[in-house]
């Protein structure tokens, strides 16, 4: 049972900057917080063992424990308003696209005071039919339902009216597509005994307010599905007027609000197009730039026809900012070495780490090497649930899936949010991921089912193999994060001579891509210490911190697929998907690109004749072996998990040398999907030539150079035999030459 956890508001900071830490601790009276530098998060007895450095910090002390809650589920809200208070008769309506009508009670649109229990709720009832609940704020409530279950993933015009004089409710459940023998159309008129009293109520989309917490309205009965063109009118409309109101701009008299979700799609505001301007905001980032009821397929980009993208997709498990209260702060002192750190908190038998990067002082560097911590990729994998939600996990690893206690906790506590490898509870893909929540998979000591046999590390903890190697060999380095590269571009890395990647630097924004491209063009040296990088294009939110978007478009190894017409990021309007499908394959950046994957055991490289080329003599100085990396903590070999290959047709420079290639991969390894045009047998390790990692070197025109290991497991071999091995030697040879000023060309 996880009892203590937390997160920080920033993922990196320079000296003088302050990071806030938010902690939840239950079942204890207090917890201890301290600062550690993360060196080696691998606890395997087969390696150097867990290493951290305790650093004195002013926040180190005991703190009172308290549990802080997370409220997942998205909705939108318009604050209370006198126009809402004055409602007597009304009509509320929207186009809806329910995705889980069978789930039970869900709210589409509500004007409800949670204290008085007065107002109304247009929703889906326990039986999946459209319903209206009216509360008089004095303890009486009444519900009316169409009694006909909505069909999932079908558009409906849903409306309810209340005539205060007649005390008459009308419900309209009108499917936009008709099917033979299946009729879910319903129209119902019924008199009721109660009248809604809406005083003090906020208007919510996708939820009913149940109270307040973490500084905002908490929603309940969250809706799964899309809402398009919600309208509120201060009278009971006829059916023809409801149809009229569902049009684009044809409003009737007595319109209270006509919300238009096609406006400000990239932001969190929702805009009321009526003269009343009852604008609101979204909570927990429901997905925008979603196809509306009127999408035709004529246009695939929401920027070109926003009127076709008037829907917001709400989910009962969306999460953006947990909104926890701050427990303690840390202002980075001058002189603290740049690196990967964590605020470590512990209480009773449990502990947690809140990792962050300390950068050098702004505008300075303390080394010629920068190790870029791939926080975008950490966020994409944050709190992933594939081992419990997707049958493929066992196939990918060729073994019964091994879970950690953390995984069990996340499985049982979905409120901590999902990763971009997961699906929402309604089956739609998770395209937003936030770091403003405890990310329990981004921790030292954490083992992952994706990490192969042996140490079983993935992402951040696997990257500590690189940090440990740098520390153990005394190499000076600075650290920055993906976010620093994204927001500052080339200037964040311009001072350095060598850019070192992580083991799996998969997710790149355009700003990050351009920054590294400029670095290379200026003569910078790139050491690619992993595989499957520069794969997915991502977009950071333009005004909100700590959240990014991935649209899993057409192609690539995807845990889910975006709906047709929903390939463009809502945050920026950029086309999402693989960089390769946008004309920038990874081979153009590092000479190699994603080619195959498997997650059981790893293999080795065999040198090629090109490794004898005088141009690369420095790389193999002191390395006599033909076989490279037939050992290691990750899967037992330096070539494995994900593999990249050189391919001139995809952009590998013509001057690139393939120094070694891996072989003898297990049949669990499969060629990546983007290489398969006609599926046929023969795509596995031992069968297909694309199941290999190519170690590549090439020089760039400005005197720089690129060295690519092309394997995620490479770094797991660095510490073998007390760091004396051919993987470590090759890495050191490359780094030491790359650090020298002397141009390569």
């Amino acid at each position, binding site marked *: 049972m996880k009892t203590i956890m937390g997160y920080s508001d920033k993922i990196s900071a320079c000296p003088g900057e302050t990071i806030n830490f938010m902690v939840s601790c239950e079942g204890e009276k207090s917890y201890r917080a301290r600062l550690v530098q993360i060196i080696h998060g691998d*606890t*395997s*007895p087969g390696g150097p063992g867990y290493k951290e450095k305790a650093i004195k910090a002013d926040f180190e002390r005991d703190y009172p424990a308290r549990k802080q809650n997370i409220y997942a589920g998205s909705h939108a809200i318009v604050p209370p308003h006198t126009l809402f208070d004055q409602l007597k008769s009304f009509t509320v309506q929207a186009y809806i696209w329910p995705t889980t009508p069978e789930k039970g009670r869900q709210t589409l649109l509500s004007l409800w005071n949670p204290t008085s229990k007065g107002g109304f709720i247009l929703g889906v009832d326990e039986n999946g039919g459209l319903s209206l609940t009216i509360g008089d704020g004095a303890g009486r409530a009444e519900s009316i339902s169409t009694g006909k279950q909505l069909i999932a993933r079908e558009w409906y015009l849903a409306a309810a009216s209340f005539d205060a004089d007649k005390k008459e409710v009308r419900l309209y459940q009108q499917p936009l597509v008709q099917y033979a023998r299946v009729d879910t159309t319903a129209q119902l008129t019924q008199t009721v005994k109660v009248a809604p009293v809406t005083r003090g109520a906020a208007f919510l989309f996708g939820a009913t307010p149940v109270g307040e917490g973490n500084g905002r309205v908490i929603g309940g009965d969250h809706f799964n599905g899309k809402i398009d063109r919600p309208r509120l009118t201060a009278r009971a409309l006829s059916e023809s007027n409801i149809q009229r109101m569902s049009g684009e701009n044809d409003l009737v008299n007595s319109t209270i609000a006509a919300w238009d979700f096609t406006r400000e799609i990239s932001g969190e505001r929702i805009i009321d197009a009526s003269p009343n301007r009852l604008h609101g905001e979204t909570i927990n980032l429901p997905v925008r730039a979603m196809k509306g009821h009127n999408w035709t397929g004529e246009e695939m980009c929401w920027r070109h026809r926003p009127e076709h993208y008037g829907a917001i997709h709400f989910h009962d498990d969306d999460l953006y900012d947990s909104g926890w209260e701050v427990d303690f702060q840390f202002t980075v002192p001058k002189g603290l070495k740049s690196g990967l750190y964590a605020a470590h908190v512990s209480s009773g038998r449990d502990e947690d780490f809140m990792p962050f990067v300390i950068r050098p002082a702004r505008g300075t560097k303390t080394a010629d090497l920068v190790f870029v911590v791939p926080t975008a990729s950490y966020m994409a994998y944050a709190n992933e649930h594939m*081992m*419990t*939600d*997707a*049958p493929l996990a*066992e196939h990918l690893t060729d*073994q*019964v*899936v*091994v*879970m*950690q*206690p953390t995984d*069990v906790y996340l*499985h*049982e*506590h*979905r409120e901590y949010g999902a990763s971009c490898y997961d699906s929402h*509870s309604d089956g739609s893909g998770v395209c937003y991921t936030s770091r403003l929540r405890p990310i329990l998979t981004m921790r030292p*000591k954490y*083992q992952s089912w994706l990490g192969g*046999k042996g140490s079983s590390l993935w992402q951040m903890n696997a990257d500590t193999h690189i940090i440990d190697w740098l520390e153990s060999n005394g190499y000076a380095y600075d650290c920055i994060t993906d976010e620093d590269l994204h927001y500052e571009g080339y200037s964040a890395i311009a001072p350095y001579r060598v850019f070192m990647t992580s083991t799996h630097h998969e997710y790149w924004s355009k700003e990050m891509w351009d920054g590294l491209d400029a670095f290379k063009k200026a003569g910078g040296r790139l050491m690619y210490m992993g595989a499957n990088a520069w794969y997915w294009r991502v977009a950071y939110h333009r005004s909100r911190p700590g959240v990014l978007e991935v649209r899993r478009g057409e192609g690539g190894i995807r845990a889910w697929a975006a709906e047709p017409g929903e390939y463009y990021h809502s945050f920026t309007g950029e086309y999402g998907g693989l960089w390769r499908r946008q004309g920038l394959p990874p081979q153009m950046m590092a000479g190699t690109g994603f080619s195959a994957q498997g997650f059981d055991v790893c293999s080795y490289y065999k040198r090629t004749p090109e490794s004898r080329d005088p141009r690369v003599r420095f790389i193999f100085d002191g390395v006599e072996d033909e076989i490279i990396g037939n050992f290691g903590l990750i899967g037992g070999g330096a070539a494995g998990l994900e593999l990249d290959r050189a391919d001139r047709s995809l952009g590998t420079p013509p001057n690139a040398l393939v120094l070694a290639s891996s072989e003898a991969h297990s049949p669990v390894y499969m060629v990546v999907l983007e290489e398969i045009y006609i599926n046929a047998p023969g795509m596995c390790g031992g069968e297909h030539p694309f199941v290999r990692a190519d170690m590549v070197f090439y020089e760039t025109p400005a005197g720089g150079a690129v060295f690519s290991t092309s394997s995620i497991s490479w770094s797991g071999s660095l510490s073998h035999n007390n760091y004396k091995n051919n993987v470590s030697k090759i890495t050191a040879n490359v780094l030491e030459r790359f650090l020298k000023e002397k141009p390569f060309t």
Partner: protein
Amino acid sequence: MARKYVLVCRKPHEEWVLGQLTGKRGEPIQMSNQVFHKIEDAEWHVFKQRWKQHTGEDLSD
């Protein structure tokens, strides 16, 4: 995912307990009292369970 076997690590690199998923999100994993100190032993145990399920035969160690 219902009845899918999983191993839950109880002591890192030392001890794993066999469990089965219920197939429903958020529902606790049904843990057995089968404890293993080598993942390979757990794999063999699960293989025998599945063999028995599909063929009705018991496999001996």
